[in-house]
């Protein structure tokens, strides 16, 4: 049973990320991202995947939405977005986790919003 089927020459998703699987910025699935300047064209020399991500981010969206719309696996999306943030062309919005008491105000706003929406 030592026979191993040889894999095809399909490019593995992590080839795009140079083998990295971790992003340097705190990018969670719900974190919102947007281009720093929506009127700018994509910077030169971006890989096609990064370029697609950049163009999509001209409107604010979550990491999960970027991944779903472009059909790029979540982990790859996170690393590529992190690179774009590093270049200063994509802005990473604050993510409210409820860990800090200072975020209570935002949670209260969320509750008031839900009370308005679901009466």
């Amino acid at each position, binding site marked *: 049973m030592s026979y*191993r089927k040889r894999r095809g020459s399909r490019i593995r*998703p992590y080839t795009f990320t140079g083998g990295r699987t971790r992003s340097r910025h705190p990018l*969670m*699935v*719900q*974190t*919102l991202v*947007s281009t720093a300047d*929506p009127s700018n064209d994509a910077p030169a020399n971006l890989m096609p995947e990064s370029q697609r991500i950049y163009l999509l981010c001209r*409107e*604010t*969206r*979550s990491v*999960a*939405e970027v*991944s*779903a*719309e472009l*059909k790029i*696996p*979540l*982990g*790859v999306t996170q690393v590529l977005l992190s690179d774009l943030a590093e270049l200063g062309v994509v802005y990473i*919005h*604050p*993510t*409210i*986790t*409820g860990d800090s*008491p200072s975020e*209570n105000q*935002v*949670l*209260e*706003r*969320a*509750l008031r*919003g*839900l*009370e308005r*929406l*679901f*009466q």
Partner: protein
Amino acid sequence: MVSNDFSSDIQTKMSTKIVIAGGFGAGKTTLVGSVSEIPAVTTEAVMTEASVPHDDTSATPQKVTTTVAMDFGRITVDQQLILYMFGTPGQARFWFMWDDLVRGAVGAVVVVDCRRLADSFEAVDYFETNRRIPYVVALNKFDGALEYTTEQIREALEVSSDVPILDFDARDRSSSGSVLKTLLRYALSNNAAAAPVG
């Protein structure tokens, strides 16, 4: 994709997340669909499968990567705040990705199908063990009636006494919305207890 619902203002938008957990077929995706302003979206994460023994009858034991689908929905709470709901994969063999999915959530809902209580053991266990995240238990009324009392369910699932348990109908928007409101109120009361305002 509708693009007009994203305003182009430069005000900083923020987001937050609620995790919807529960057994396979308990009504997680139905709940998300009831309250979400967009049709539930599926995203896929390619996971390298840890060699945890799972299904003995598995036909592909050598498989090294697996694609996990996650359903999510969105509620624009106000102009600056967006709440995402993420459904956890129902199959227990995807438990290894829970930490990633749960990280940063303000709270979780465990959806329970009362006809199949055992299916929710693992989800309840996860949140009972990892008490950092406030959670509520939502009993999905499939036939309009519940066979057990809330306290019977609490005992059967070993849910802590302070964790809210409520019944709801996942198909109903307002009923599902109540579950989210209960969770946020509970999360806020937890925070107030942990850090009294000084």
